[in-house]
């Protein structure tokens, strides 16, 4: 039971940290060079790609982070 709880917490933390890093990097890029990221997001192809990837990411987070798919092996961090 504790192992399952730890596994769930690991998934939740992994997803949370990766999303935080992703948007943190995006924010830093915007703060440092807005003239770089804004034209990319204004471009129709860039905007469409970013939108599709965001939806896909939300789907993946809901699927993985919320334990819909169980991993086959225990994560190595927890095995230590």
């Amino acid at each position: 039971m504790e192992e399952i709880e730890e596994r769930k917490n690991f998934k939740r933390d992994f997803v949370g940290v990766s999303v935080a890093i992703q948007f943190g990097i995006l924010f830093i890029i915007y703060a440092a060079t807005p003239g770089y990221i804004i034209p990319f997001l204004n471009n129709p192809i860039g905007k469409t790609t970013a939108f599709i990837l965001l939806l896909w990411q939300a789907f993946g987070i809901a699927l993985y982070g919320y334990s819909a798919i169980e991993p086959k092996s225990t994560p190595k961090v927890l095995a230590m």
Partner: protein
Amino acid sequence: MNINRSAKTREKAIKSFILKCTVIQFAIAVATCAALSNRFSEFFCNENLGSALLCSAIWSVIGTAFYPYIRGTNRIVPDAQKILILVIFYAPTLSILTFGPMLDGKGFANFPKISELFSDVPQLKTTEHMFFARFPIAQGEALTAKNTIVLAVDPTKHVGGIIATKDNHFGDSKNKNSMLLRKSIYPIEAGSEIRDSDIEPHYQ
């Protein structure tokens, strides 16, 4: 045991609801694109609507990722939790996806473009400062600060007018480009722009 079991089933229900919301979001995006392909591309390329959609999608991802961290959710009834999740994290994206392509975008003509708010590219001016005759200027009369005036106008409506700069502005008569060193070749009516062809010596 019973309390734990009910808490787990509640948790499971919320999580499966979130998964359904993300799937529906994805499906609506694909369906809207397929059904209204021309309007969808116009809507997506619209500065304000496209950027709003992107921001709401980012908000959905953040909500999906960080919802498990929100403490105190056990105090709210699961049905109310579902409504809150839908309204707070998924409603903006779903409503923009559903109703956005139906808007023709004309209503946003007067909105400041989001790219203008965040871009560091200098914006084009819509007016220029030009020289006009304050009073009627006779043939051969010298241009002075009394008989001329500088006004901010639309340059497309006053083609041929001389644009006021630091070089040719009244204050610096020692500068060879200064308007104070010019005189009119032809009579100039009061209120009309001063053209290079009306004065001598000409510019360039």
